[in-house]
């Protein structure tokens, strides 16, 4: 069976980062779910902090550096994505948005995506529903029904078996289901010719 690619995009800025911590927990829970279904999976992590300058340079110069290109290609070829951002000003961070801005309009079509976020208080949690979910819907990704927000109390007081754990497992199950039911992804080739010259000439 083809090994599936699960790609984690984390927009945390600090090291260690609670955003990355949540991303890792979501990824490992998804991996465990796929394992249970007998679907082999390889997990790769894209830390957006590492590409911060390159993302801005791409916006300005119109093409990605080699390192950013590899990251974008990795995301575009993923069978499923876990994307996690800190919530800034009631929405995703600018770096998170800019990364998906340079990814390309069609890169995520029909791609299963689990959205997650972290914030200083649980009052930010609906940013997942009013900011992240619409953006990935716009990109025609398949966003799984459960999104996962982690606030400080989830890390501080909650036990490992607490409600955050429950949400992570539910979301991971949904993502694993979407990945398992699909054929492996074939990354789109932007240089592929999709029409014949006669079609171009006649405008059909």
């Amino acid at each position, binding site marked *: 069976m083809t090994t599936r690619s699960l790609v984690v995009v984390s927009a945390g800025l600090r090291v260690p980062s609670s955003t990355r911590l949540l991303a890792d927990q979501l990824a490992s829970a998804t991996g465990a779910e796929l394992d249970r279904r007998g679907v082999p999976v390889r997990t790769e992590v894209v830390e957006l902090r590492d590409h911060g300058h390159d993302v*801005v*340079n791409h916006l*300005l*110069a*119109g*093409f990605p*550096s*080699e390192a950013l*290109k590899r990251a974008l290609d990795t995301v575009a070829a993923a069978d499923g994505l876990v994307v996690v951002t800190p919530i800034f000003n009631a929405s995703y961070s600018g770096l998170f948005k800019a990364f998906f801005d340079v990814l390309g309009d069609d890169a995520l079509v029909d791609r299963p995506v689990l959205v997650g976020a972290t914030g200083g208080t649980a009052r930010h949690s609906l940013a997942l529903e009013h900011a992240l979910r619409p953006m990935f819907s716009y990109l025609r990704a398949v966003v799984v029904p459960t999104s996962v927000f982690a606030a400080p109390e989830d890390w501080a007081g909650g036990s490992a078996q607490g409600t955050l754990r429950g949400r992570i497992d539910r979301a991971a199950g949904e993502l694993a289901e979407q990945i398992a039911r699909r054929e492996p992804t074939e990354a789109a080739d*932007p*240089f*592929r*010719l999709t*029409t014949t*010259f006669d079609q*171009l*000439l006649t*405008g059909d």
Partner: protein
Amino acid sequence: MQFGIFSVGDVTTDPTNGREPSEAERIKAMVTIALKAEEVGLDVFATGEHHNPPFVPSSPTTMLGFVAARTSRLLLSTATTLITTNDPVKIAEDYAMLQHLADGRVDLMMGRGNTGPVYPWFGQDIRNGIPLAINNYDLLRRLWREDVVDWEGKFRTPLQSFTSTPRPLDGIPPFVWHGSIRSPEIAEQAAYYGDGFFANHIFWPKEHTQRMVGLYRQRFEYYGHGDADRAIVGLGGQVFMRQNSQDAVREFRPYFDNAPVYGHGPSLEDFSRETPLTVGSPQQVIDRTLTFRDYVGDYQRQLFLVDHAGLPLKTVLEQLDILGEEVVPVLRREFAALRPAHVPEAPTHASMKAERDAAAETVR
């Protein structure tokens, strides 16, 4: 192999002294640069076409006609002619006229133009970019090849019994290149007609150029114009040279850092690694340029961008001296030594006329 320069015709403030040339100065500077290109032994001068500030060359045939009158050997071309927003009838007329005045020293490079607002100024819509390029060029070809044209299409009024005048010099239309960075449809168009394909090659990584040229060559062969390695390929390039490479980097850096398109973005070092930009000694430019062949195969035309980003005219003329004296003679020799005999040169008016006359002779 042909070597030359292509100019965008930007009016840009010199970041080292805050001086901005007037339009008059920039236009005259472009002419001076073109004349210098012939003087130092280059083969081609190509002007951009733009219809918005900060660019001056909105009327390429006016400029090229003026240059034609003051040169005798230089091939005059465009980079690019807007096949989307120009009326193909006017392109047919203007460039046939230029052919007569320049004794055939004319070819064109078609491009779509990527500035959305320009399209409606000429009654078009950027969303139709590809269909405009395909349909307009199809009409342009007919106007040059058929004395009387009846035509009806989507993007202009129909033509009935129309003759584009003057007819192309000696009945031979100018050779056409199609320029595109990443639209496979345009590589396909160039291949379909057996025209040339030009990859701008200066603002993007070489992988783009490699893919596009590869596609063009493969489709050129598919359409029966000859083996893939006989297809006609041109490349852009961007250089800045001083005898000492550190001097080149020091002098060019402020222009790079503030340049339109990529300024305030990647560093000069990153951009030099990731695109064909070469800032250094003449030998470094020679070495880098020779590597282009490794990923596009033997090719026919190399144009350099040397006069943008606010570089003063004096500096540009010095760059042309270095190109003409130290770089291009070596590149000519080295590329020629590497090129197999069956790979053709880029067609010129003279070569196309000789070929036609020879074919007529054979028939007789």
